[in-house]
C-alpha cells in the first residue's frame, strides 16, 4: 500500500506534517467505525479495516525513519525487517564511545548536565544524518537509495541511544 497516495500527498521525504495531520483527521472523520455504528455488520468490519489502514499510514508517515523506510520500500528496497550486521568501524567506534558516556552518567557529580551534553550530541548527529537522508532520497536513483538505506541504519542507532538516555533520565528522577 502506498501511504502517500492514501493521503494524496507527493511521495517525498520532506513532508508538511501539519497538512498530513489535517488530512488524517479528515479521513478519520469519514471512516471511523463510530460513523458507521448503525450500518450492516460488513460495513462496520470494513470501517474498522479502513481506519486501521489510515492509522497505520499516518503512524508511518509521521515519523521520519518510518517514512524513509516506506519511501525506499516503494522503490523496491526493503530494510524494515532485515537482519544484517553493520560494518563501518568508524561509526561503531563512535557508538561505543557514546555508550560508555551513557554508562558513566550515574558516576557523575552533575548527571543532569552530562545528560544535557549527550542529548545535544545526539540531536546534532541525528539532524545531520536526517539532512543527508533527505538529500539522498530526493535524488531518486539506485545508488543514492543505497546510501539512504545506510543512513537509516545509522539513525536507528541514534534513536535507540536517545531512548536509553530518556530511560536513564527517568530513573534519576525517581
Amino acid at each position: 500500500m502506498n501511504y502517500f497516495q492514501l493521503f494524496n500527498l507527493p511521495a517525498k521525504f520532506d513532508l508538511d506534517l501539519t497538512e498530513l495531520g489535517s488530512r488524517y483527521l479528515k479521513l478519520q472523520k469519514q471512516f471511523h467505525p463510530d460513523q458507521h455504528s448503525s450500518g450492516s455488520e460488513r460495513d462496520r468490519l470494513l470501517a474498522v479495516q479502513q481506519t486501521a489502514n489510515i492509522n497505520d499510514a499516518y503512524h508511518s508517515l509521521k515519523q521520519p525513519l518510518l517514512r524513509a523506510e516506506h519511501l525506499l520500500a516503494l522503490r523496491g528496497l526493503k530494510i524494515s525487517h532485515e537482519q544484517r550486521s553493520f560494518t563501518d568501524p568508524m561509526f561503531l567506534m563512535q557508538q561505543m564511545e557514546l555508550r560508555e558516556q551513557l554508562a558513566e552518567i550515574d558516576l557523575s557529580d552533575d548527571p543532569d548536565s552530562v545528560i544535557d551534553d549527550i542529548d545535544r550530541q545526539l540531536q546534532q548527529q541525528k539532524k545531520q544524518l536526517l539532512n543527508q537522508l533527505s538529500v539522498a532520497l530526493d535524488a531518486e536513483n539506485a545508488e543514492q537509495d543505497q546510501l539512504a538505506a545506510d543512513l537509516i541504519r545509522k539513525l536507528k542507532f541514534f534513536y535507540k541511544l536517545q531512548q536509553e538516555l530518556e530511560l536513564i533520565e527517568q530513573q534519576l528522577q525517581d
Partner: protein
Amino acid sequence: MALLQIAEPGQSAAPHQHKLAAGIDLGTTNSLVATVRSGEAKTLVNSQGRDMVPSVVRYTPDSVIVGDAAMTAAQHDADNTIVSVKRLMGKGYSETLALKEKVPYQLIDQQGLVAINTVQGVKNPVEVSAEILATLANTASETLGGELNGVVITVPAYFDDAQRQATKDAAKLAGLNVMRLLNEPTAAALAYGLDSGQEGVVAVYDLGGGTFDISILRLRRGVFEVLATGGDSALGGDDFDHAIVSYLQQQSGLAELSHQQMRQYLTLARSIKEQLTEEESVSFNLPGDSAQTQFSRSQFEQLIAPLVKKTIRACRQVLRDAGLTAEEIVKVVMVGGSTRVPLVRSEVAAFFASEPLTSIDPDKVVAIGAAIQANVLVGNKADGDTLLLDVIPLSLGLETMGGLTEKIIPRNTVIPVARAQEFTTFKDGQTAMALHVVQGERELVEDCRSLARFELRGIPPMPAGGAHIRVTFQVDADGLLSVTAQEKSTGVQSNIQVKPSYGLSDDQVATMLKGSMQHARQDMQQRLLREQQVEAARVLEAVSRALQADAHLLNDTERLAIEQALTDLATVQQGDDTAAIKAAIEHTNHLTDDFAARRMDQSIRSALTGHNVDEV
C-alpha cells in the same frame, strides 16, 4: 463486502425517526443508566425512584434480585449476594486469590476462570453483570416506552482485552446491542462538553469504588484523542473502606471477622467515610459495642494518604507517557464518588496546580457522557463533528523463545489498528503452530497477562522454514482483539482456534445465552430470525443509498445484478426462513464488494480535495 454508508459531515444520511439509545455506566459499586431527551442528557430513575443502582446481585433459590433490595439482604445472605463483581470480570481464578479474603462470597475455580458458588448454582461474573445490565436496560425501556436500539457501555480505560470482552459478552447475554464500549474518562469529558470549545490537554481523574484511572486527552477541532492512560485496576474507594475496617478491627480487638461481621464493619466504614466529607469528626458504636468511638478526618486522611499518593504517582507516570508536564494540563475532570473525599481533591488540585471540575455529580458524569455518545451513535444527532480517537491501553505481544514477549502493538497506539507479523515453520512438513498472545508492558511472559492461545492449523506441508505464515492482529474501536492468519506462498488461510485464557469462547457464550433465564422464555429461533431481518434491513438501506449516490461507478450489467439481488433480499426478508435471509445477505455482500471498494476510493479522494470527484 457490503457498502459503507457515506454521509457528508454535518448532514444525515437519510431522514430518520428518533431512535432509543442509552448510556450505561457499569460500575464496581453502583451502576447508572442515562439517556438524551429533548436535547438534555439525564440519568433515569427506576420504579423506586433511584438512579444509582447498587451493582449488587442476590441469588435466592427461585429468583434473582438486583440493586437496593439485594443490598439490604446482603448482611444476612452474604454468600449469595454478589458485590463488586466488576473486579472479577475477565479474570482467572488464580488472579483473584488476593480478593478471596475481601469478598464475602465464595469464589471457585471454573476451568481456570473465577466463578461464584450460589444457592442457584455456579454463576460466572459475565452472568452476574448481565443481570445488572438487564435491570438498567429495563429501567430505560420502561421510561422511554420501547425497546432500546442500542447502548453505549463504559469501561475503565485500563481494562484489558479479556475484561472488555467479558463486558461485551455480558451485554450480549442481557440481549443488548452494544454500539460501543466507551472509556469512562472519555465519557466524563464528553459530559462536560469539553469536545466543543475547549482546546488543549485535559486530565480525567477517576477514583471509583474499585478502580482508579487517570487519562490524558487532547482536544482540538472537535477531535478527542486519548494520549495516554494509566492507573490501577485494583484501587478505589473500597480500599478506603477496607483501611477503615482494618483500623476498626484493631480497635475492637477481634482477631478475625466472620463474613457477616465483615459486612457490618464495611457498612459502618462507608458511612464514616461519607460523613467525613462534611464533618471534621464522627462518633459511632462498633458492632456489638455500646461505647462511643471517635474518629476524625485527619485520622482518616492518615489511613488513606498512602493510597492517594499511589494515585498521584500514577498521574506522574501517565504524564510522562504522554510527554507532558503537569503545567500543560488545562482542565482536570473529577469522576467517581471517591473524589468527594477532601484529601483527594486537595492532592489532585495541588499536583495539577489547577482547581478540578466538579460541577456535575461525579457519580453520574460517566453515565451522562455515555448517553450523549449513544445518542450520536444511534443516529439521532447528525453531527460528524465529534470524533473519538482511542488508544490501546496495554501493549499486545507474543510469547517468543525463552518466555520473553515481543511487542506487536505498543500501548497508546491509536485504534482501530492492524499489525501483521510473519512466522515460519521449524520442522519439515509442519502443519500446525501455536501462538500465545499476552498483554502488558513487562519483558517476561509470566509478568504479563495471558490473553489467548491460538493454534494455526492447515499449514501446507513444506520443508522447515519454507512456509511463511502472516498473522494479522486487529484491534477494533472497542479495543477488542481478533486474529487471522494466512500462508503467504500458497495463500492458504489457516484455521485459528482461539482459547481465551480468561474469557469465554463463542460457543460458551452461545450456550449461556440458551440456558439463561432471560431467554428460556423467548423462542431462540424467533430471536435469530429477528436478528437476520434487522441485518437485512440495514443491508437494503445501505445498498439502496449507495446506488442512489454512486450508480455512475457501475456498468449496466453490474447495476442490474445488484438491483435484482436487492429485490430478492427484500422478498426473503419478509418471510421466516432465517437461513435464506442469511444467504441473500451474503449474496448481496458478495455482489457489491467491488462497488464498495470503488466508493471507498472515491470517498477518500473527495474527502481530501473537498470536492466531489465529478467536479475535479
